[in-house]
């Protein structure tokens, strides 16, 4: 589904990603761990195609297509979806209209109901939303968009337990974890700091990123346990296969 080869990315003069290699297969969901500022958000933003993230070297393959230089909206139309951590307010645009923009065929009523978001249908997108509401709004949009590959940047930050459950459920739908493994076609990558969300959704594999490279890959549970015990320092020089 997604293959990243020796990806070097800078923002302005700052080199953030330094040779990232990563591969996410069809039906797989990966978690991405790492300390603040290590480049996790940069990786997702680069895959999404946000212009200020400049690719200096390397290739991003998606469904066999080299998308490294592809404009953002074309990537979205090809099946890449992203939930933003701090999305902007869109003045004058109602949530219900945003759903239609994401996908005119989407069953807005059902999506809003599933995310307990019906009363927000006529509100302007993200205007005056609380932390949990912003996250649910992002999930609503992604469920409408139905991407084949979904990227989630800290969907559990600043969110209470009730909201984490709802969001975890939505992620499982987006990544088809509610279906049997052989039927799963959709994939995803999720950034999480504390792994709370992993209690409510399932990830097949995890990676640890430190200073712009992936230093460790393996089972999400094991890696999370290691980080809890030894911190991220313990991941440096770890012998886990990358």
């Amino acid at each position, binding site marked *: 589904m997604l293959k990243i080869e020796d990806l070097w990315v800078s923002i302005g003069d700052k080199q953030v990603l330094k040779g990232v290699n990563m591969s996410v297969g069809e039906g797989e969901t990966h978690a991405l761990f790492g300390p603040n500022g290590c480049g996790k958000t940069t990786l997702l933003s680069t895959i999404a195609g946000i212009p200020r993230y400049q690719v200096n070297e390397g290739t991003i393959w998606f469904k066999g297509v080299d998308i490294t230089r592809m404009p953002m909206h074309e990537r*979205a139309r090809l099946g890449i979806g992203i939930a933003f951590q701090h999305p*902007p307010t869109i003045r004058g645009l109602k949530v219900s209209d*945003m759903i239609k*923009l*994401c996908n005119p065929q989407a069953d807005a009523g059902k999506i809003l109901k599933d995310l307990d978001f019906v009363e927000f249908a006529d509100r302007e997108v993200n205007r005056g939303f609380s932390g949990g509401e912003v996250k649910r709004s992002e999930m609503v949009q992604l469920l409408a968009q139905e991407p084949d590959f979904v990227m989630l940047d800290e969907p559990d930050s600043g969110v209470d337990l009730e909201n984490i459950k709802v969001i975890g459920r939505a992620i499982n739908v987006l990544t088809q974890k509610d279906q049997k493994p052989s039927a799963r076609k959709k994939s995803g990558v999720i950034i999480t700091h504390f792994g709370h969300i992993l209690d409510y959704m399932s990830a097949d594999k995890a990676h640890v990123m430190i200073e712009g490279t992936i230093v460790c890959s393996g089972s999400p549970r094991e890696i999370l346990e290691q980080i809890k015990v030894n911190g991220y320092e313990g991941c440096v020089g770890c012998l886990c296969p990358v």
Partner: protein
Amino acid sequence: MSMSRLEEKAKKAKDKEAALGTDIDIDSYEAESEEMGEIEALEMLPEDVQTAALSAGVSLTGESAGDYFQVDQSAVHRGSSVEGIEVMDIGTALREHSYLADYYWKLVPIDTDKYTADVGMHPPAGYFIRAKPGTVSTFPLKTCLFMGGKNKRQRVHNVVIAEEGSRLHIITGCTTPSHAGRGLHLGVSEVYVKKNAHVTFTMVHNWGEEVEVRPRGASRVEAGGSISENYITLTPVKSLQAFPTATLAGEGAVASFNTIMYARRGNIDIGNQTILEAPRTSAESIARVVSTGGEIINRGRMVGKVPDVRAHVECVGLILTEKGRIYSIPELDGWCGGLDMSHEAAVGKISQVELEYLMARGLSTDEATSVIVRGFLDVEIKGLPPALKEEIQKITKLEEIHGGS
């Protein structure tokens, strides 16, 4: 003041340049227009006139409280469908209602500038609308000022009186046929809102690219009354300058102005001022303007004369192209202590983050720009009847409104 005295004052001001806006050579436009006969029903209007009216927010179908339709200088149709609401052409009203002399040219001085003087020196045309005390109209009164001929000078003088406890919604579409050439529209509007009366006054300008427009408006609101004035211009115009004034004369009176402008070319100098001269009055002026090449001067002025008044001005503008100019001028003029006036002004571009957000959902740059601009212009105008709200939303959703073009 007698008519002859008024004419005398007008004559003295016939060369007086306006305080704001580019100067216009009035005499380069024909002073006289062909008289047109009355029609029995609005449906009998030629199709291009109906289309032009529609694009200025005036649909000739649907429920209405009454209508007034003027082509050049001729009132071709008027009538009221609500008991207690009078709709007449101003000439007839002046002949039939002697009391109108107390209102005619009382809010807008006839010698304001050469444009008001020109209106005053010629036979009156325009509408007179009066709601008798306590009359409530839920449906809009639809009025249309249509300039059909080329090189014409259209002069209009409207007077609206909402008597105590009444409620009126007026929409005025000012428009030309799509093929119209140069023209000059001069419009005077005087709106009286008596005690506890409520008026919404919406004006949509949909002129041609060679039309110059100089409306002169003023309203006066008595205790407990309110006025909501909305000005919308989304299609190109050669030049437009207007600066209507609302005077809040009675305790607790409220004024709200909403201005929506979109200029691809041309010169627009638009704004409004509210004079708060009674306690516990409040006013709000919100302007959302977009330039894709045109020049917009956007003024919002509040004058607080007594304590215990509140006023807020919001002038926000987007420039979407390399060329184009938006000059935002919020002005707050406080004359005493104990008042509360504030403003918010911004001129800028579309936020890159907002664009990227929508593009991540699959919208192209142009589509995302268009969504953001429409949202920006979609000001929530309070107090409008649903039918009118819908018409205005339709206008702001016109296909042609999108950035970069």
